């Protein structure tokens, strides 16, 4: 009888101990991502690393991943309202510029201490960190990066009489500052004059508001924010930018109605590389063109044969060539009850393997130095050759009033481009708008 009792106690105790050992805390983590189908890895990477993180932390994860192609303004407002209600997702993916608004509002948390606990972040391309910071702290982790380069048509340059060697060396000559922005516009002018392209088809730029206009200001030595966090509008740099932008249509290389031009229409003309000589765009557009615009011509292979990409050629000798990146970033919301777990997940997706999945499928540049040496990124004909651009990249600052700055700058661009104002008047328009809206919050130089 004693034996039976002893055995029973042993079994019960054993079962209790065993269940305690195996009982794992289940932690709910929600992740909100945005983008098209080709950007699916922004969210799906978390599912791919779920087991790994569970094993590392000894926990059970219950992930809720939400990914859709919602419009930016709606997407950001959704987070804003959810954060205010205390129901924000643990991890939110958004443009890095939102750090400038969401950090001071208290909707996201600073990550410096958490970053220090994970070695994965050490390999992130150093130039990307600036775009993740505000007020001396890091608030976000880069999810992807890109170069916003100038695409050139090999086909049309050949028609213009360029040798294969000259075409192949163009990106390097731009990088070395030997082929300047003025050279590019002059080439486009020549292409129009010689009938290689129609008037207005020498150089296409972005047809709407966006970050792509910053290189013109930065390329003329303009500063947006100085070290103490004050916003600056440099009238000399802005004048240089506006004069250059106004000259595109005046010299016949850009169509006068380029601002407001239909995106689809523009891609239809740019992607075959037989109508537009130079185009200012983004690396991710390559994937879109290959699938949606020129699949019948050969898709990616056709583009590789007929299209090339280079940095923004130097607008001034001092600033040299440049490009712009607008990294999307993961942020941890202040509503998160498990920021350490969220951070462990972020560390797990900030690896060569995970980020390559996204980079390869969506034609975004990598965020880690090691990616350039790893397959399949290494052998990717576009990404591997464009990765060097990250060394020349600049980005918009994270500042609560950056949107007012950028809107005023855009106002001047529109005025100068359409000819509704001279470049000097366009500068004045921007200055008056900034002073009216920001008052003492802006320094006009």
């Amino acid at each position, binding site marked *: 009888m004693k034996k039976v009792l002893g055995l029973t106690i042993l079994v019960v105790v054993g079962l209790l101990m065993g269940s305690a050992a195996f009982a794992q805390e289940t932690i709910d983590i929600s992740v909100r991502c945005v983008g098209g189908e080709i950007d699916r890895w922004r969210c799906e990477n978390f599912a791919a690393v779920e087991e790994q993180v569970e094993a590392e932390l000894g926990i059970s994860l219950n992930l809720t991943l939400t990914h859709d192609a919602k419009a930016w303004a709606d997407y950001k407002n959704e987070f804003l309202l959810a954060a*205010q209600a205390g129901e924000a997702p643990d991890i939110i993916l958004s443009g890095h*510029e939102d750090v400038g*608004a*969401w950090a001071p509002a208290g909707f996201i948390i600073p990550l410096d201490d958490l970053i220090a606990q994970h070695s994965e972040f050490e390999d992130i391309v150093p130039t990307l960190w600036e775009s993740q910071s505000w007020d001396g702290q890091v608030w976000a982790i880069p999810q992807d990066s890109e170069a916003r380069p100038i695409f050139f048509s090999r086909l049309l340059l050949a028609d213009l009489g360029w040798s294969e060697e000259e075409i192949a060396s163009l990106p390097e000559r731009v990088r070395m500052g030997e082929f300047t922005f003025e050279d590019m516009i002059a080439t486009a002018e020549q292409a129009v004059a010689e009938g290689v392209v129609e008037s207005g088809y020498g150089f296409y730029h972005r047809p709407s508001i966006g970050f792509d206009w910053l290189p013109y200001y930065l390329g003329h030595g303009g500063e947006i924010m100085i070290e103490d966090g004050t916003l600056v509008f440099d009238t000399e740099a802005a004048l240089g930018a506006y004069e250059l932008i106004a000259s595109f249509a005046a010299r016949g290389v850009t169509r006068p109605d380029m*601002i407001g*031009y239909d995106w689809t229409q523009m891609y239809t003309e740019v992607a075959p590389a037989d109508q537009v000589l130079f185009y200012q765009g983004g690396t991710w557009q390559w994937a879109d063109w290959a699938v949606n615009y020129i699949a019948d011509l050969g898709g990616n292979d056709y583009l590789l044969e007929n299209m090339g990409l280079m940095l923004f050629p130097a607008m001034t000798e001092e600033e040299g060539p440049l490009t712009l990146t607008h990294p999307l970033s993961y942020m941890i919301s202040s509503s998160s009850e498990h920021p350490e777990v969220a951070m462990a997940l972020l560390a797990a997706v900030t690896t060569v393997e995970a980020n390559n999945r996204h980079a390869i499928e969506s034609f975004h540049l990598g965020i880690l130095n090691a990616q350039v040496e790893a397959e399949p990124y290494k052998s990717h004909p576009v990404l591997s050759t464009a990765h060097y651009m990250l060394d020349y990249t600049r980005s918009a600052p994270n500042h609560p009033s*950056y949107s007012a700055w950028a809107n005023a700058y855009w*106002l001047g661009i529109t005025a100068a481009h359409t000819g509704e104002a001279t470049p000097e008047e366009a500068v004045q328009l921007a200055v008056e708008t900034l002073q009216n809206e920001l008052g003492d919050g802006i320094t006009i130089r």
Partner: protein
Amino acid sequence: MHCAPTATGTFLGMGMAAVTTTQSKRTSSGRPNLTAYLFLMPAVVLVVLFFLIPTILVLYISMTNLTSANFTADIAQMEFIGFANFTTLFNDQFAQKILFNTLFYVLVTMAIFNVGASLFVSLLTTHINRRASFVFRALWLLPRITAGTVYIMMWRRMIADPPFGILNQALGAVGGTPITGSEYVWTFVVIVNGMIGMSFGMVIFTAAIESISKDIMNAALVDGSTMLQRIRYIILPLLRWPLLFVISYQTLSLLTSYEQILLLTNGGPGLYQTEVWALTAYHRALSNYFGNAQWGYGSAFAVVLVVIGVLLAALYMRVFRFRDLVAEPKIETL
């Protein structure tokens, strides 16, 4: 069986003298009719909840510096800055242009389509075969019942710049000169919006015309009146109430409408060429490309719109002598 008089002063089974007595009692006592107020309560609650409170909230938010960077839903936490947003708004060098755009858009669209064309279609379809008129009116309703985004996408494809665009391809086929959307941007904005707004007036006017007593029309016919004379001297005077309603409603509707313009031109091309006031409020408060939405400043734009709308509604009521229109029939005040 005793029959109580109804709230309107009419009743069943009693003579005219009793009506007069009841009417007299109701007006002379001066006591509030609690039953009437009770009947009004549901409507009052809805108006307060969905019209008055939001207006007060927008007015208050317009006096705060609420942005995405200090966003809060707690009114007590919003920073009150008085009329600073309005000062910024009135100092905005493009506010005047946007206001002019708005007035131009409202007046032209309403004159040509929302009142002009809808009245024309109503008069036309009430003077033709009844079955044909149904078909015709149903066709004019299509822009209204088509999903807004689909409708605008169709227009965008239709008026796309050469060599694209159905319009340009048609022009090309007959040897015409191609046109670009930016050249005729206001024409297209007015047409696209007008085609949608027209159906509203058409339905109201048609119903009003068809409810005109046949006796009056027959009397006019016996007197040898022409169709134009009947329209001028019978139909149009009797449409004063529907006209006031359509003009007032459509003015407010056009003042606050921006969805089609947003999808068609987004206020461009160039410097606010087709930007209207409501679109600016939307751009500022809800759709800032660079993220930091200015809820307070955007609300200031909305408040100005409310003020303009109220002033215009008051003006219309005065011009159309609203009191006379809603006066009780003289037969009941004898």
